[in-house]
């Protein structure tokens, strides 16, 4: 409308997070891992199942965090990658009798390819426009899975039932517990991979693009390659999470992977702190447990209670769990000095 708008300078949409602030200190990491290893030995199977889901959603949020917090690209379409991963695992296990553990790398590689390809047209879009494009992917995915053409493999609207694996080598543990430790091992592996990725040359390239795309390209970073690479890696990790999810829930159906899932993942990322990798698991806890708490407070108004709780969180800590961790760290530092 006027000339002013053309020279509007905008702050980057995603805050710059220093590399060092992206992970936990080694002491905290040790405590967290120890807790994750020991707690399942003392709780009921249902809680173990919920902890498994927490790790799985945590991985999916982590993947989104690499994309948005790392390379500064929005996505409301990660539910589509999750769906592709879940279906890849389910189809390989049920139709082709492949061992469940072997289906996960396949799911990861297929989703990596899918994400990488989707990243190509997405290159030209940013901000709201990219959000709309990924949103379209998320709304289209359940419909595509329902198409009669794929019904032979996907089972159409009814979906597929997946058998839960037993613990191998005759280990004396329940299926739920085995699946938990299996998920935990994969989660730790992917977490270490992600941390190292963000510390590597590629990770620095992601962050440079996030902070200022033009400056990054002026420094010789191949913006197109790294942006699509970020999409691919994010989709690949989401795919593995989807595969694990299918095994844990023992069921895949098109309507489990709607836009609602994508929005949950997004909320998880915001609550955990954009760009702070450990926060992904805090965010995952939020999206798994808070809707249940809201339902517990009031059945009829559960949506409103959820909204109010979400508002409370973003009012108190606009930067999510990252902010809490930083404050805690400062307090600890002060205590040590005294």
């Amino acid at each position: 409308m006027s000339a002013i708008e053309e020279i509007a300078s905008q702050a980057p949409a995603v805050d710059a997070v220093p590399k060092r602030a992206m992970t936990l200190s080694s002491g905290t990491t040790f405590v967290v891992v120890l807790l994750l290893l020991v707690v399942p030995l003392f709780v009921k199977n249902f809680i173990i199942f919920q902890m498994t889901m927490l790790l799985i959603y945590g991985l999916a949020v982590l993947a989104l965090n690499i994309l948005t917090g790392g390379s500064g690209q929005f996505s409301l379409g990660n539910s589509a990658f999750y769906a592709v991963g879940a279906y890849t695992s389910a189809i390989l296990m049920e139709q082709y009798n492949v061992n469940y553990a072997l289906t996960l790398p396949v799911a990861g590689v297929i989703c990596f390819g899918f994400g990488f390809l989707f990243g190509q047209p997405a290159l030209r879009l940013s901000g709201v426009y990219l959000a709309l494009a990924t949103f379209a992917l998320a709304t289209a995915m359940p419909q595509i899975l329902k198409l009669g053409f794929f019904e032979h493999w996907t089972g159409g609207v009814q979906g597929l039932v997946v058998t839960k694996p037993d613990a191998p080598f005759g280990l004396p543990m329940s299926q739920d517990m085995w699946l938990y430790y299996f998920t935990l091992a994969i989660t730790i592996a992917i977490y270490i991979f992600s941390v190292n990725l963000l510390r590597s040359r590629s990770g620095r390239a992601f962050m440079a693009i996030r902070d200022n795309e033009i400056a990054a390209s002026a420094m010789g970073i191949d913006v197109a390659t790294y942006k699509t690479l970020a999409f691919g890696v994010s989709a690949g990790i989401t795919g593995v999470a989807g595969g694990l999810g299918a095994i844990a829930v023992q069921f895949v159906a098109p309507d489990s992977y709607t836009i609602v899932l994508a929005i949950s993942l997004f909320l998880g990322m915001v609550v955990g702190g954009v760009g702070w990798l450990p926060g992904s698991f805090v965010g995952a806890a939020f999206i798994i447990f808070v809707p249940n708490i809201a339902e517990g407070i009031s059945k009829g108004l559960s949506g409103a209670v959820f909204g109010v709780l979400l508002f409370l969180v973003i009012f108190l800590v606009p930067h999510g769990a990252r902010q809490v961790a930083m404050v805690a760290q400062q307090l600890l530092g002060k205590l040590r000095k005294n």
Partner: protein
Amino acid sequence: MELFTNQVLAGIATGAIYACMALAVVMIYQAIDHLNFAQGEMAMFSTFISWQLMQWGLPYWVAFVVTLAFSFAGGILIERVLFKPLTKAPILTQVAGFIALFSIINSCAGLIWDFTIKQYPTPFGSSPFLGSQLISTHQAGMIGITVLLLIGLYFFFQYTRVGLAMRAAAAVPESARLVGINTSWMIALGWGMAAAIGSIAGMLIAPVVFLEPNMMGGVLIYGFAAAVLGGLTSPFGAVLGGFLVGVFENLAGTYIPHVGNEMKLPIALALIISVLVIKPAGLFGRNIVKRV
């Protein structure tokens, strides 16, 4: 050929709904620089208020005006209470706030008026318009009101001091503050106006899609799509985008085999994305040049 013209006409009629919504979306985008995901729910709530007023015996146009005033005040109130404190928060946190607002309004409306589908009256009647079977007088009235709104908004933004101040506050807040514009209140005003336009959209749409708490879900998605297609900086583009999306959707449903109702939305979205890949700022949006 007759099938084609009929489908195009029907598309324009549904497009009017999307155009209305897209206009509200662009309004708030002009004022606050974000897409408000709760916009549809705010419109739905306003529509329920007008329905309630009519249930209490008020005539249509009185209820219409009261609802407009209510929505305007409500929009300002929401901004002051919920989003002003978040001004300094990261953008993604604000988006999470919109999702929270969506959830709250939807749930409250469901509790107050429950989820049964309600009839909503139309002031224009529903007889065929000028003898055409495809466009009813209501749909014609809807198109008319959308166009009137668009013209009104154009004059407001182009020729009034407040309109200019609002544009300045949204485009370059720092400079706007330096010349003495109260940018904080301009944003609140933008919320109020967006809520009011949304309520008009809601009251016009309700006779077509019927009144219920989830009535806006689909419409809002198309409204966003239309706004983005037309270019988020251009109200004219948004309205045109709305009509285009309506026509696309109908033609895709007619001419592409195996497209059921459920595949209409993905196909419409896919087409919009192909347009965006060629013109990344939308058909009528201006490219924003960034300072390094």
